[in-house]
């Protein structure tokens, strides 16, 4: 490897101002001096509007942990677009993303991707990963929220006899339910894995307004570390239920204090219902807080662009539309890949409506809009 790098540096004497990779990319598109790429090796249709895309990444990729996501760059009509997708392949195997057609970018990925296509990549990241030590687990997923959890199930269930996983997966109909057959097969094969398919078309939405439904589907749910992934409402409801249960439990333990009952339950204690034990992964964020506010003139200093904008468009979109090479990531304010220094002006956080901004501050352009004139150091 080191010798290769030395060789590349020597070769660059002959290729400057290009890098040797720029020449090699004539023969193999995975080579690039500047950006990580992958070649699509296989595309598998999952449901009518979802597909799994396997790819072979170039140098610079790092192996993913089960549950992580990666940024994928795709070209739409000649323009590069980046989105984040969860990796559905088990840890330790070639990466694959499972994509559901919900917008322009995912639509192109699902419908038009063919083996041999080039994907632009960023290394996997994310904290929605399996616990370090074995624990009983409860997975709550809805729709395409199954994707990162599928990676966890595939990683854990077949290889760890000590695993104890309960999955409750909600989808509209059996036809819409990604990985339904594989999940059922795994459940048949491995007694340590239980799966409940919940079809909202038949039974209505999963009800987290009280503990009743969970008590029925997974009676020991309070003693499990829980992972939830799905649409915003689904996650908000789950969070509310866990908070309520934690509050009730705290009250209960105060009442029984001194009776030693708490101690006798200790082995199960650490996993008791507690918001800390509910790990969630969001797919979307509501960015409505900027509506109705005035924007201003946005100046991208280093790129020498100026754009007049409204108060509700994320600065990331503004920059991308102006042809600025904006760093980007999850596009919903969680991954901090898009941080850009603010030179002057104020921005509005589109999630909360809060206006902030100090010169030099790093702002999340994907969830910030202009609140008056804004100068960015990019």
């Amino acid at each position, binding site marked *: 490897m080191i010798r290769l790098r030395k060789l590349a540096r020597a070769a660059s004497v002959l290729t400057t101002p290009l890098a040797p990779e720029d020449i090699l990319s004539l023969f193999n598109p995975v080579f690039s001096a500047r950006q990580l790429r992958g070649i699509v090796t296989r595309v598998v249709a999952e449901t009518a509007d979802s597909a799994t895309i396997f790819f072979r990444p170039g140098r610079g990729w790092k192996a993913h942990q089960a549950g992580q996501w990666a940024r994928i760059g795709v070209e739409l009509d000649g323009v590069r677009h980046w989105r984040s997708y969860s990796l559905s392949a088990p840890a330790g195997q070639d990466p694959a993303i499972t994509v559901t057609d919900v917008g322009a970018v995912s639509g192109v990925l699902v419908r038009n991707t063919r083996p041999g296509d080039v994907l632009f990549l960023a290394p996997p990241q994310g904290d929605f990963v399996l616990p370090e030590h074995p624990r009983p687990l409860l997975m709550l997923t809805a729709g395409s929220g199954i994707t990162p959890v599928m990676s966890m199930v595939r990683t854990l269930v077949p290889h760890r006899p000590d695993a104890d996983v309960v999955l409750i997966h909600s989808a509209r109909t059996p036809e819409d339910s990604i990985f339904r057959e594989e999940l059922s097969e795994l459940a048949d094969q491995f007694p340590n894995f239980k799966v409940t398919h919940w079809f909202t078309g038949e039974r209505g939405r999963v009800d987290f307004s009280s503990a009743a439904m969970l008590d029925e589907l997974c009676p020991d749910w309070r003693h499990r570390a829980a992972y939830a992934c799905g649409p915003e409402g689904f996650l908000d409801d789950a969070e509310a239920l866990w908070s309520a249960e934690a509050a009730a439990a705290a009250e209960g333990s105060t009442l029984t204090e001194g009776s030693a009952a708490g101690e006798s339950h200790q082995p199960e204690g650490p996993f008791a219902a507690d918001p800390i034990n509910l790990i969630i992964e969001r797919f979307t964020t509501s960015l409505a807080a900027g509506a109705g506010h005035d924007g201003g003139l946005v100046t991208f200093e280093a790129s020498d662009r100026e754009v007049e904008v409204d108060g509700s468009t994320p600065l990331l979109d503004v920059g991308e539309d102006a042809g600025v090479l904006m760093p980007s990531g999850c596009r919903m304010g969680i991954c901090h890949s898009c941080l850009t220094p603010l030179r002057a002006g104020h921005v509005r956080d589109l999630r909360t409506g809060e206006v902030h901004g100090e*010169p030099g501050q790093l702002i999340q352009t994907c969830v910030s809009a202009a609140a008056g004139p804004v100068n960015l150091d990019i």
Partner: protein
Amino acid sequence: MAIVTNHEAETTEDAVVPSSRDDAALKADAAAEASGAQAAKTRRGALATSGSPLVRPPAAAHLSDEQVAELGRELDAIKDDILAKRGSSDAAYIRRMIKIQRGLEISGRATLLVSRNKAAWITGTTLLSLAKILENMEIGHNVLHGQWDWMRDPDIHSTTWEWDFVTPARSWQHTHNDLHHRWTNVVGKDNDVGYNLLRMDPQQEWKPFNLGNPLYNAILAPVFEWGIAIYDLELQDYKEGNKSKEALVKDLKALGIKALKQFTKDYAATPAVAMLTGSGKQALYGTLTANAVRNVWAHAVIFCGHFPEGTDTFTEEMVEGETRGDWYVRQMIGSANISGSKFMHLMTGNLSHQIEHHLFPDIPSNRYAEVAPKVQEICKRYGLPYTTGPIWKQVGSTWAKVFKLALPPKKA
């Protein structure tokens, strides 16, 4: 992260609320001085939204403000039409060009490695010359204009691209994109009028030095890239105190590093490898020739852009209060096209569509040919000159000017 007191933050905010653009610029400067901090920089040189310049150039003097505004709207519509069409076929075009260019480059250089054989020398030198011309003109120049930024591809972007030319891309972008394209042919503002070396306009005062005009131009052509590199240092601005010493040192360093790399590649590394086949000397002559061919060609094409008979130059009064429409007019009457085959257009980097390029410097170069007839029609309808001609005629015309302006103006 900077910690700023409330007071300073307010000043900064005040400064960038534009009551009017000039006002904002003044306030921003004041704020920058007051706080000593990096305050918001408001861009200068913005165009007026209405009215007319103090003096409209003679070739456009017959047009009313309203006609000029209408002309501006028509040209804006042409641009919008192209932007709406721009897409995957354009992206495929530039990628194909880059592939072809890199293919020519490596095959040319590889052939030079065995250039002891005469046929190999001719082939290698030809391929490398073509590669260098394509790289500078159709790819480098246009990428550095930001014509392909819309693709958001960091490999083909005006902020990341570096070219096979001694002047560093960033220095050139400043003198070319910011100064030349903004102030096209305004004597005293656009130093591209003669590159501080030649007398290319009768408005420029004659000095005995100018007697050497044709000689300087002949010497400049084969080493054009070095001429541009020195020009981009803006030594004149430094002498006049408009450029700081730090800025000059920084530019000199960047140029030194770039020149060293370019020099090493063409005149040391390539001949060194070729020595393995006993072709070292021939390879050196090959790379020298290829650079000279590219330089002579680039010099010819670029001189054809603004110097042939029929192109106008402008005074500072003609740009004072200039609107977008007047700016368009100035670009059209201050530039000249070259007519010819598709291959010729490609080899000039579509700078043969200089008029269209100056109107819309950042639309993809493969679209200029499609825009040209529409622009020509507009010029005809508004009674404006649209200068064009075959390359031999345009080159002849620039040389005629070089000779003519070597001599002092005739006393009236």
